[in-house]
């Protein structure tokens, strides 16, 4: 690596690019469309009881599912990407895999937290409780969140970056492998799940509801992509900033000493003139 005595200043001042700005704009527009569909054009979930004639169902709480379910799916996508990237860290050991793993884990954890929060908010009017121990999906998502919160904590520790990235990769892979165990044990534990009582199959999934849900998936996917892109770039720049700081420090140190003296001190025999 050539070390210049003075480092040129940066000419780019952000992590955006034409592609990411286009994606961002499209996402915002799309979220607006999703909102209109979710709140105005679709109906609430109202069903008539066959014998008593009473109205029952989720009523307007169903509109929360248009964000909750897509967020959940994208969480799995993000953590799945993290697992694949973690494999890449252990096998290929290039910085690209490492930055991707970290970015996917961070964005995934944000999404996972939102899944828990939106789920809890949805659950209050529909299941009449903020939280339900023994619901399989809820418990699994909670443990998943805790595991990746641990991953992020590990990432923040100081130490040899290569070593930290390898340990983090192990943590991510063990987390992903542990999830089926968590799922199975909770399923056996209570042998029931509130989630089952009101799955997507129960809802009147007519055309517009289904379309809105699909649009929700698309929108959350775009949000995920945009966030991943920027988080990746930030991660990459953090690495570059570290390298740059080291290079600048070396250059500064070398600039303090005249060349001849440096050469002499490393044993290059020269005319003692």
């Amino acid at each position, binding site marked *: 690596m050539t070390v210049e005595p003075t*480092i*040129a*200043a*940066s*000419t*780019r*001042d*952000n*992590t*955006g690019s034409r592609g990411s700005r286009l994606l961002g704009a499209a996402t915002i527009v799309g*979220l607006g469309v999703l*909102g209109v569909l979710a*709140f105005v054009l679709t109906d*609430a979930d109202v069903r008539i009881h066959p014998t008593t004639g009473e109205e029952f169902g989720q*009523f*307007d*709480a169903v*509109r*929360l599912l248009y*964000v*909750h379910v897509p*967020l959940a799916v994208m969480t799995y996508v993000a953590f799945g990407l993290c697992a694949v990237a973690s494999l*890449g860290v252990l096998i*290929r050991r*290039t*910085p*690209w*895999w490492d930055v991707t793993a970290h970015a996917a884990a961070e964005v995934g954890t*944000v999404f996972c*937290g*939102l899944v828990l*929060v*939106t789920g809890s*908010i*949805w659950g*209050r*009017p529909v299941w009449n409780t903020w939280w339900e121990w023994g619901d399989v999906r809820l418990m699994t998502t909670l443990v998943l969140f805790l595991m990746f919160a641990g991953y992020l904590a590990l990432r923040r520790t100081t130490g040899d970056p290569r070593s930290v990235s390898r340990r983090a990769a192990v943590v991510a892979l063990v987390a992903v492998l542990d999830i089926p165990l968590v799922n199975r044990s909770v399923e056996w534990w209570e042998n029931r799940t509130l989630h089952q009582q009101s799955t997507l199959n129960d809802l009147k999934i007519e055309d517009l509801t289904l379309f809105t849900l699909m649009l929700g998936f698309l929108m959350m996917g775009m*949000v995920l992509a*945009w*966030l991943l892109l*920027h*988080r*990746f*770039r*930030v991660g*990459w*720049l*953090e690495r*570059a*900033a570290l*390298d*740059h700081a080291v*290079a600048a420090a070396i250059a500064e140190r070398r600039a303090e000493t005249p060349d001849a003296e440096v050469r002499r001190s490393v044993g290059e025999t020269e005319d003692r003139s």
Partner: protein
Amino acid sequence: MTHVGYLIAGWGITLGTLGIYAFRLVRRGRNLSARVPDAHRRWLEDQGPNGA
């Protein structure tokens, strides 16, 4: 509309959190971009899993 409070809370927290996170990412990106000269910003050239 029923359950309005829950709807506002749910959608609000979701969009708010994502928005704040996005905003902080962009700001972090701006700060880092100012510190790192072009010579070190190699992601545009070294894109891909096999890049150095």
